[in-house]
């Protein structure tokens, strides 16, 4: 079993979320949900993160930011799109500045739908992401 699975560090980025999903992401850290019991730390540093959690749809202005954050993260890494906006653009899909879901800019591994996504489903999505993380880790080791 890879250790990445036991100590996944999150990087949370708010693309153009209405803040509804962000509140739910932060709720995961509170005593009620306490994601730290899985070793998850909500870090602000892409270079130390394993999982990129993006809320909200991507727009013209932050497209480069999202790309850069993704590129700064060391392998293995996993992207989790939280909320229907991040999955497909959601209610903002037809706005003039919106490109669509996160997957229009970077590859997404796990989609967590919902408006807003509930803390339970966010944790569920992250745990699913751990499986992907382990797979990528194995692939990396095989290539070495």
């Amino acid at each position: 079993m890879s250790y990445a699975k036991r100590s996944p560090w999150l990087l949370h980025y708010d693309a153009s979320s209405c803040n509804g999903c962000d509140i739910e992401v932060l709720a995961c850290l509170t005593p009620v949900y306490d994601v730290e019991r899985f070793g998850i730390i909500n870090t602000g540093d892409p270079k130390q993160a394993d999982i990129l959690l993006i809320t909200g749809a991507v727009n013209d202005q932050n497209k480069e930011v999202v790309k850069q954050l993704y590129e700064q993260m060391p392998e293995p890494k996993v992207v989790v799109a939280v909320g229907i906006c991040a999955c497909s653009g959601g209610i903002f899909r037809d706005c003039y500045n919106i490109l669509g879901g996160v997957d229009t800019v970077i590859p997404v591994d796990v989609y967590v739908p919902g408006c807003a996504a509930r803390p339970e489903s966010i944790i569920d999505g992250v745990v699913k992401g751990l499986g992907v993380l382990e797979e990528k880790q194995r692939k990396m080791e095989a290539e070495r």
Partner: protein
Amino acid sequence: MSDIEAIILALVYLILAPVAGCVLAGVDRKLSARMQGRRGPPIRQPYYDVRKFMEKEQITSNGVQDFYVACYLLFVIVTGCMFFAGMDLLLVLFTLTLGETFLILAAYCSGSPFSQVGAQRELYVAMAYEPILLLAAIAFYLQTGSFAIGDIASSDGMAVIPLIGVFVAFLYALTMKLRKSPFDLSMSHHAHQDLVRGMTTEFSGRTLAMLEVSHWYENIMLLALVALFFMDGTWVGFAVGLVVAVLAYLLEVYIDNGFARMKWQTALKSGWVVALVLGVGNVIVLLLM
């Protein structure tokens, strides 16, 4: 203390300190979580973290920084070994400062504004606690007539009784040295602070693992320094020292959770006031006695 004993003690430190430091870090996180009403990660979490860092892809913005962090690890280990071998206390403190300097250089050379500001703050905090550490060494010399840790540890009577002012000042410096809130200005083990990860912002992968292991080594050495105040050459002194060292760490965890981060001005001023009043005051009393 004979040479053989000294070498054995240094080797024991070399092997057991990371284990003890890792457990201590795990207890720290568990306890912090409990204080916040959470369940918290398993005690082995710091070990998992370090193993994960070692598995990750290595991204380095400036190759020199890895070298500097490796030097930090090396000098922290050397410091600890010298301490446990009972060598000169002044030499131990200076070597520790040298290690610290390498860490600051590593943060400075990475180019990220976050780690640069973190390094700057670390310098201020170092200015705040260094006088206290030096005064502690001087006070030990005045009390026991020797700078050698071996002699200090086997001198008659617990040094803490005449050195109580210096001891309290040292506990104050310990908060800064362990980088606990309110003095975790330069970097913090808690996520999401004003400087992202401060000095460690540009460190990832193996570099971060090295840094974490150095912290384990360093914490054990610092707690041993706390215990040194109680050593009187007997088992009682050793046991009391051990218990007080653990209690001191628990106190630091409590302080860490109870305070918000302070400005560097506060750290510097309060550090010097504590050094002047408690440290220098204590030394003057020792000189007059």
